[in-house]
């Protein structure tokens, strides 16, 4: 998600390949019904001057056949993307669209997608001279020729994926990210309104700016994570530390930096334990 968004931004330290072609982020995780079928692509990018949209679904392992058919319907009826409000700024009858699965693994090795006109884009770390290589695998290509010609995209050493646009998903490899955002959300809420007790949804909304538009399925998963996070957080005594720095009637000078430092030490311990427990993968491990 972050890499695709990054490709549409003007960031000195990540390729702006899609931005140069005029693509911008149109919408993230829209839920749309097209001809009676519900789809929720992870991302839609649109190049308005080209009147072309790219629907993206990020997959680690699971593909569902019915999903493939629905995406095929969407691509064959691109006007519906406009009429349903998923794509903005293009006359519906003029829009063309492509769909692509995107993964850190080679999905074409795992699944036979030949009956569909989908591209598959693979991300691979440390390929040759590149920090990251983004390429189309399989035989299908994008319908928009300039977009197609833009691949493969190589991210040289000295540049790296942005990670903050979409800070975490309900995927195991994101647990550490989840924790650092939740810890910071706790500080934010404590600073604004006190800390006792925290509401999981409030913390999640503070931690992830796209919480409001996530699917109920994803929210449910993240809420479960959030509840476990709070349990562990309280077990570690982080709640006691947070009370020392929360907003209250005391004058501002009362909240000494030593209290924040003690909180940070505790938080670091929390993160270290979590990383050991989960054997967290890093970007380069994919």
């Amino acid at each position, binding site marked *: 998600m972050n890499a695709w*968004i990054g490709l549409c*931004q*003007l*960031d*000195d*330290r990540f390729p702006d390949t899609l931005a140069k072609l005029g693509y911008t*982020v*149109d*919408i*993230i*995780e*829209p*839920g*749309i*019904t097209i001809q*009676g079928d519900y789809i929720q692509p992870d991302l839609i990018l649109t190049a308005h001057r080209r009147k072309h949209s790219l629907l993206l679904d990020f997959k680690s392992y699971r593909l569902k056949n019915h999903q493939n058919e629905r995406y095929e319907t969407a691509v064959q009826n691109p006007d519906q993307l406009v*009429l*349903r*409000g*998923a794509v*903005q700024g293009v006359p519906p009858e003029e829009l063309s669209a492509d769909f692509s699965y995107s993964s850190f693994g080679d999905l074409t090795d795992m699944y036979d997608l030949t009956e569909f006109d989908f591209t598959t884009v693979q991300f691979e770390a440390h390929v040759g001279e590149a920090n990251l290589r983004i390429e189309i695998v399989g035989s299908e290509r994008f319908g928009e020729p300039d977009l197609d010609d833009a691949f493969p995209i190589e991210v040289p050493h*000295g540049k*790296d994926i*942005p*990670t*903050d*646009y979409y*800070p975490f998903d309900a995927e195991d490899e994101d647990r*550490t*990210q989840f924790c*650092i*955002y939740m*810890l*910071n959300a706790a*500080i*934010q809420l404590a*600073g*604004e309104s006190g800390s006792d007790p925290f509401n999981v949804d409030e913390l999640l909304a503070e931690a992830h*700016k*796209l919480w*409001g*538009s996530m699917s109920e399925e994803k929210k449910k998963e993240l809420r479960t994570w959030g509840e476990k996070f709070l349990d562990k957080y309280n077990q570690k005594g982080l709640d006691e530390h947070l009370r020392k720095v929360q907003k209250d009637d005391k*004058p*501002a*000078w009362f*909240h000494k*930096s030593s209290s*924040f*430092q003690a*909180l*940070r030490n505790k*938080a*670091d311990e929390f*993160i270290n334990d979590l*990383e050991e427990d989960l054997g967290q993968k*890093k*970007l*380069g491990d994919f």
Partner: protein
Amino acid sequence: MPPLNPTDRRELYEHFQHVIEGTYDQLLEDQELNYKQNMLKSFLVETNIEPTLLEERFDHLTLEELDYSLFEVLIDTSSEEDDEDLLTFYLDSQNERFWTFYSIEKSRLAKDAMEDLIMAERSGLDYLWFPAQLQRYFTKLGEFQGAGINYDAEDVFSEEYIDEYLPFGELSIQSSGQGTSWLLDALSEADLKRFMSLSSVKIRREVEEGVVIERIDNNGRITTRGGDNIQAHLSFVETIRELYADLIRGIEKEGRIGYPIREIESEEGERHSSGQSVEGTPIVINLVNSVDDLKEFADSFTSATKPLRLWGVGTWLADDYYKIRGTDLHNNDSFTLEIKRDWIRLYLPDDACGNTALRIFSNIQRYYDAEASFGERSDPENSEVGLTA
């Protein structure tokens, strides 16, 4: 000499006129000021509150309106050890975002009083944070007469970190006179540029209104060492404020990340909120002084201590890529830093103050790498001053 209790803006400026004429003549004559003769100090301060809230937030401060958007501010600095000491400031709040506090109190006392106000947690006030590029631009606004260099790594990094990775824990040089330019050039050629963080510049500025000699500190304090026309000083303050405001506007326009909500229409014709987009880009800060220990560097910058007052928790993204998610304790803005050996990416939310970006950036320059620069794409648009290398 007009009364010390001005009742309106004109009287106040008349008083300042005498002050700057007096200090100018005295320095010219004796190269030092008389006892109890102080220079005019103008503190430019960034704010997100109304003046009337100052009394609510600070018990030791009283406010009295003198004129339209002009207030007398009395700050009680007494303590158990000292007798009651009331310091007088004059607040010009005509610009709602950038105020000016004027004072002719002793320099150290005025500076400390302002620091107590500004650094109080969630005071609603902040310094202006002049990056090195802006400081160097100031030297072109008049005849360059002097500079201060202060590299203070030891205020942020541990002794162990400095011993292992940095050649200096502290570097401090004060220079005035025509040799200053030559000195700065010589130090640059000696490969010391990344430690030459400008803490102040001094210029003699001759404009249509008159002449002023100003020292501009890197946090928005302007000390008028002398002059013959207060209007020259006031227009200079306005110039600096506008230059800084342009930088802030540029950052706030492009350098913050927002997630506008999109509405989608269901087949039944109902509109509901579903899905968001993303706008804005992070700010890239390029480093000349490479970072050898990413985690230690990040931890030092987010230890919650003064002067930065940034708190954060971090994690490794890759062996050479570290991330901090944190809070600016000064204003409760959240931020994210991604740190590589030679660059940093700073993400600010769309409601964050652009001043936070300049605070982080100028403090990286002051405490780590005076040659740090914005990436080309991050450079604020429409600003006369570029922040790139």
